[in-house]
C-alpha cells in the first residue's frame, strides 16, 4: 500500500478532528472578515465565527448553493484580493452567470498535494507516464491531475480529449502507463484501438482514473477487462478544487474524502437536515484549507452515502459511496453539465417562445447521447418543408454549439410525452 502523505492520510481520528476544528475556526474567521456574503449571512442568524466551539456547530450555519455563487459573480466570494490569485477557473455549469473560482499560490500547492495523494494511492510513481485525456480549459480537472502527477515526478502527457486514433498511437509509442479521462473517452479509446487493430496487451497501461461524469460498475468491468488495467473512480467539482476531493483507494469500497481539507456532510436535500452515516442524501462540503475561494456548507447536488468505518487500505479519512445521481435537475453528460432551463432558454431565443420539451439521455455504444424532444406547435411547425428543415437545423446548431457536441432534435406530436417530466435519463449506473 502506497501513501503520498501517510502522516495525514492515516492520521488518528482524534488528531484529525483537532485539525478540522482548527481549520474550520480559522476559515470562518477569515470569511467573516473578508467576504461580504458570509458576513451578511452570519449576522442574519446572529452567529459570530469566534463562538464556534465544535464541529457539530457547523450544522447551524446556512447552506450555500450554486445560485449564491453566481449571484456574487465574478469576484465577490473571494477571500483574498485578486492580486494574490494566481489562477482562475470557471465551472462546468454553463449558467447564464457562471462562477469564477480563484486559487492562490498556496491553493495550487494544496491542490497538487491532494491529487498527488490520489495518484500515489492507486500506485502511480515517478516511473509512470500519465496521459491526461481530459479537455484542458473547459474543465479544471486536468490541471489538477497535472500538478499532482508532476509533484510525484511522473511524466505528464497533457493531450486533452479528442483525436482518439492519434491518442492511441501516442499511448502506444510514449508507453503511457496511466490513463486519466472520462469513462466515455476511455471507451472511445478502446474502440479506436479495435479500429486500428491494435492489441491492448502491447500497451504499457497499468492504471486508469476516470471521473467527471457518472459511470456504472459495468463500465468499469468493461474498461478493466478490455484495457487490462485497474480502473478507479475520482470525484471533484471545480468549485472545490476539482479532482482530489474524494477518490477510490485500491480497496475500491467507496471514495475517501481528504478530511484534512474538507468537512463533508450528507443532508436531506428537501429539509436540509444532516443524515446519519449510511443514508443517502446530498453531499455538502465545507473547505477548511482554501484561501482564495473558501466555501461554507456548499451543496454539491450529488447524492451519496457516508461511510465512517475504517477502510482496509489503512486510511482513516471517511468515505462516500460512488456518485451516480443528482438531486437537482442538472444533467451530467459527457463531462459537461446542463439544466433543462438552459435548453428552454435557447429554444425560446430561437423561436420566440419556450415550447414543451423533454430531454432524453441514452447510452448508445457506450457513449452518452442527448435528444431534445419538442412538441410541435404552430411556432414550431411550418407547412413549407424547406422552412421547417432550416428551422430544425437552426435549433440543432444552437444547442449543439452550447453543449459543445452533437445533440439530436426531434419534433413530435403533442401528447407524446409528459411535459412536466423535463428529463428522462435512460442510462443505468447501478
Amino acid at each position, binding site marked *: 500500500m502506497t501513501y503520498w502523505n501517510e502522516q495525514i492520510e492515516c492520521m488518528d481520528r482524534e488528531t484529525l478532528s483537532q485539525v478540522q476544528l482548527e481549520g474550520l475556526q480559522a476559515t470562518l*474567521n477569515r470569511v467573516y472578515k473578508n467576504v461580504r456574503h458570509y458576513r451578511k449571512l452570519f449576522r442574519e442568524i446572529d452567529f459570530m465565527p469566534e463562538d464556534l466551539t465544535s464541529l457539530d456547530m457547523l450544522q447551524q450555519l446556512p447552506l450555500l448553493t450554486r445560485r449564491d455563487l453566481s449571484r456574487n459573480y465574478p469576484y465577490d466570494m473571494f477571500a483574498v484580493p*485578486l492580486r494574490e490569485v494566481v489562477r482562475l477557473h470557471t465551472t462546468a455549469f454553463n449558467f447564464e452567470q457562471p462562477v469564477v473560482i480563484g486559487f492562490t499560490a498556496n491553493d495550487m500547492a494544496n491542490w497538487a498535494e491532494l491529487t498527488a495523494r490520489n495518484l500515489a494511492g492507486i500506485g502511480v510513481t515517478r516511473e509512470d507516464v500519465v496521459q491526461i485525456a481530459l479537455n484542458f480549459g473547459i474543465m479544471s480537472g486536468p490541471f489538477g491531475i497535472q500538478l499532482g502527477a508532476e509533484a510525484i515526478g511522473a511524466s505528464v502527457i497533457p493531450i486533452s480529449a479528442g483525436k482518439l486514433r492519434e491518442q492511441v498511437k501516442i499511448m502506444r509509442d510514449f508507453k503511457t502507463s496511466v490513463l486519466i479521462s472520462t469513462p466515455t473517452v476511455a471507451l472511445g479509446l478502446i474502440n479506436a484501438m479495435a479500429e486500428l487493430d491494435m492489441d491492448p496487451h502491447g500497451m504499457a497501461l497499468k492504471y486508469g482514473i476516470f471521473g467527471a461524469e457518472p459511470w456504472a460498475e459495468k463500465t468499469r468491468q468493461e474498461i478493466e477487462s478490455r484495457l487490462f488495467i485497474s480502473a478507479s473512480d475520482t470525484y471533484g467539482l471545480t468549485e472545490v478544487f476539482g479532482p482530489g476531493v474524494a477518490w477510490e483507494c485500491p480497496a475500491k469500497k467507496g471514495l475517501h474524502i481528504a478530511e484534512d481539507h474538507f468537512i463533508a456532510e450528507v443532508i436531506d436535500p428537501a429539509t436540509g437536515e444532516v443524515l446519519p452515516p449510511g443514508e443517502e442524501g446530498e453531499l455538502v462540503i465545507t473547505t477548511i484549507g482554501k484561501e482564495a475561494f473558501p466555501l461554507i456548507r456548499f451543496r454539491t447536488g450529488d447524492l451519496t452515502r457516508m461511510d465512517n468505518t475504517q477502510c482496509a487500505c489503512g486510511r482513516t479519512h471517511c468515505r462516500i459511496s460512488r456518485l451516480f445521481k443528482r438531486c437537482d435537475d442538472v444533467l451530467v453528460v459527457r463531462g459537461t453539465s446542463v439544466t433543462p432551463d438552459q435548453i428552454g432558454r435557447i429554444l425560446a431565443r430561437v423561436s420566440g417562445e419556450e415550447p414543451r420539451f423533454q430531454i432524453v439521455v441514452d447510452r448508445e455504444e457506450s457513449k452518452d447521447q442527448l435528444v431534445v424532444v419538442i412538441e410541435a406547435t404552430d411556432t414550431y411547425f411550418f407547412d413549407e418543408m424547406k422552412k421547417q428543415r432550416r428551422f430544425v437545423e437552426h435549433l440543432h446548431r444552437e444547442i449543439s454549439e452550447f453543449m459543445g457536441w452533437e445533440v439530436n432534435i426531434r419534433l413530435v406530436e403533442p401528447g407524446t410525452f409528459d411535459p412536466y417530466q423535463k428529463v428522462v435519463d435512460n442510462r443505468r449506473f447501478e
Partner: protein
Amino acid sequence: MLRLVNVNSHYGLVRVLKNVSMHVGQGEIVTLIGANGAGKTTTLRTISGLHPVKAGRIYFQDRDITGWPAERLVELGIAHVPEGRQIFSPMSVNDNLELGGHLVYKHYGKKRLKSEIDQMLDLFPVLGQRRPQYAGTLSGGEQQMLAIAMALMSGPRMLLLDEPSMGLAPMIIRDIFARIARLQQERKLTVLLIEQNAKAALNISDRGYVMETGRILLEEEAGALLANPEVKRAYLGRDQREVWE
C-alpha cells in the same frame, strides 16, 4: 504533544482569546505570528498557567492540564521564556542558572545541578566566559541566551518562547534562532514560538499560525506562510506600499 481546544481568556471583562484552537506536534517548531495586541503573549501565558483559562481545554501529552498552576506545569516539562529577557540582573550568571535549575536540585541534588549547568555552558559558551558576572551587565543577546538557558535547566520537553529576538541586533537574532533550531534537533525539544520577526522565526519553523484580535486566522506550513502575500505584507514588513483593494 500540546493541544488547545477552544481556549478563552479574559483580562477583566475583555475577552482576549476567542476560542483559540491549535496544536503543536512532538518535536515540531510552531510559530504564532500576529500584530501587537493579537493575543499571542496571552496565549503563551495561558498555556504556561500564568493566566487563567476562562473556557476551553489545554492538553499536554494527552493529559488535561487546564487550570494547572504554573509550577506544576514546569515539573511536567513546559518551560516558558517570557518576553523581555526576565533574568535576575543583580545576581551572577551562575546564580541565575542555579535558580533555573531549582527543580534539578530538589529532585537530584547538587551534583546533578552542577553537571546540568556545565551542559548549559557548553551549549552557550558565551555564558561560560561571563559566569561570575552580574547578569545585568550582559549584552542583550547574552541575556536572552541566559534566559533560554535558565528555562532549559528545568529539563523541559516543551519550550515556550516569547519574542526571543526583541530588541536585538539582526546578527544576534540569527544566532539565537540557529541555537533554537539546534536545540530542537539535539534535545528533541518541542517549541512554540511567538515572534514579531516573523521571517526569521518561520525560517526555522515547521508550521505557523496567524493570529488577529484573539482569533486564529490562518494555519499553514511555515514555507506557505512565508510565501503568503498577505502575511508578508502584514507581518514580514515587505510590500508596505501596496494597498488592499
